[in-house]
């Protein structure tokens, strides 16, 4: 068995359950190229529907945070309340604010 033979690329699969919804991570597939990755993703992850759109992305193309990035990278939500609507007072009776 040739060593090379079994090295298909890993692709992450994202499926959109209906139009307007966000694409969600469904899992991964092994494939040699994009068209095959898309077809394999359809056969593996879209059998039960509902799926209206599929994205496949080579896993090594994904640039991600690491654990430990959390502190510096993500603002703790509870110390910047000015980003939330409830922080602001609006007089009673005023509509559409």
């Amino acid at each position, binding site marked *: 068995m040739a060593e090379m033979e079994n090295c*298909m690329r890993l692709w992450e699969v994202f499926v959109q359950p209906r139009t307007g919804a966000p694409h969600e991570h469904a899992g991964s597939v*092994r*494939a040699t190229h994009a068209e*095959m990755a898309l*077809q*394999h993703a*359809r056969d*593996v992850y879209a059998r039960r529907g509902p799926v209206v759109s599929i994205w496949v992305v080579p896993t090594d193309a994904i640039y991600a945070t690491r654990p430990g990035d959390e502190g510096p990278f993500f603002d703790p939500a509870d110390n910047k309340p000015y980003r939330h609507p409830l922080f602001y007072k609006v007089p009673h009776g005023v509509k559409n604010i």
Partner: protein
Amino acid sequence: MNLETLDAALRPALFEYLLCLGDDALILGHRLSEWCGHGPYLEEDIALANLALDCLGHAEALLTLAGEVEGKGRTADDLAFLRDAYDFRNVQLVELPRGDFAFTITRQFLFATYACLLYEALQQSAFEPLAGIAAKALKEMRYHLRHSSEWMRCLGDGTEESHRRAQTALDELWMYTGELFEVDDTLRTLIEARIAPDMAALQPKWREQVEAVLREATLTVPEDPPYMATGGRRGHHTEHLGHLLAEMQFLQRAYPGAQW
């Protein structure tokens, strides 16, 4: 027209025709299902099972309709499991053993190209129940065509070995493609009634589409043989069908009348 308004004189021909379409789907689906657990890698094993399930679904719909047209109370299962080989109306192309992956994919490609043209035309069938089945089947066969075409390219333009296997498969299968476009008296009756399309008229388009993909796949279009296989539509099959049915029908034959 539907079952109620169908002209009684057309029933026998329509019944035969639905057997032709249903048996094609059934036998092809059966051959594809043989791959389950034996595919070249996991993702493709799953893909082949999907193709098989699609075909079996078409078979169930078409054979159920056939039974209703016949009007003798036969169900899709009765037709699938209790007819002998000479009563089957599939083309010989679909009953050939699955062979290697190149053989299966090439056969699927040749058949799917035909089936897309067939179901596209059948969407206009004057017989509404058939038009309905065709519309659904077309969607699925379009995926079969996309999948098998991509594989034709991969195999034809992959390695020397895959190219050789694909060409061999193509050369072997070519003589079975003529049968897909035969027009006999049964079909002529239905063409006149605008229930079925004129398959002979669709053959040039089939050829054009097939040749386009084969070119991309760097494969050579085989010469037309002096003799195209024929007989399936009349119940004259290869020796392979008998063995296939012996396996497929075993339980129903061994335990007559039992429910499963």
